[in-house]
């Protein structure tokens, strides 16, 4: 394999990883919001750290 093939393997994998993480981030946020909207119990706010 020539050097550009190795470079493509490195950059391609990185791009795939980042794309995968961005999709996972969006999905997690959507699921968190959907779950919060679905549930009905309410607890008092806690303003401490």
């Amino acid at each position, binding site marked *: *394999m020539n*050097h*550009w093939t*190795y*470079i493509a*393997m*490195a*950059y391609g*994998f*990185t791009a795939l*990883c*980042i794309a995968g*993480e*961005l999709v*996972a*981030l969006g999905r*997690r*946020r959507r699921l*968190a*919001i959907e*779950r*919060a*909207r679905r*549930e009905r*119990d*309410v*607890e*008092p*706010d*806690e*303003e*401490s*750290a």
Partner: protein
Amino acid sequence: MSLFRFAAPQTFYPMAGRMVPWFAAAAVLLGALGLVIGFGMAPTDFQQGEVYRVIFIHVPAAWMAMFIYVVMAVYGLLTIVWRTRLSGMMSRALAPTGALMAAIALWTGAVWGKPTWGAYWVWDARLTSTLILLFLYLGYMALIAAIEDPQRGDRAGALLLLVGVVNVPIIYFSVRWWNTLHQGASVSLTAAPKMAATMLTGMLVMTFAFWAYSIAAALHRVRSIIIERERHTRWVRLMLGVPQ
């Protein structure tokens, strides 16, 4: 005003939301600039040829993998000492990005190693300790996912982080302590860099891009974690427009 006020999820959530677009934009712009410098301006290496261009992602990813773990360990210490809720959430939010950085560092190192050393992998001290770092990330994520009570999960995870952080100086100094196939540090705070200025500039710009990306990803993720954990509170319900 106490700093702890900013560590309250209710205060931190909107602050993080305002920071995410700035860090994301910085990551895109710096990433694009780093690629232009790395592929358009940096010269071909006289020994390694073109394949050295892998370092523009390999080195920043390896640095971030170590740095993120240290930051997680600091949050782990805060979790154990002060039992702040946000510190546990921040460790959880950083872990997948840290694991990703470790995986990128290992993969890009392997595809650089094949044409340069003649092997994708050797059981060298630097490579092996970085592989252990990836396992520490995966172990942390598995541990917190296995414990149902989030606060208990945070404390158990914090202990693992504090024990595992000893691996970071081992990774960093492995090339000095042992005879390794992996080269020594090309960039040091105390010595002149051992590479051309454009190569170094490209690598540093990409490092800032990876840094900005990691912050944006962690802040985005921690906002989801805050919603998951605080979904029963009035402020989250008001923010999401859920009927009370």
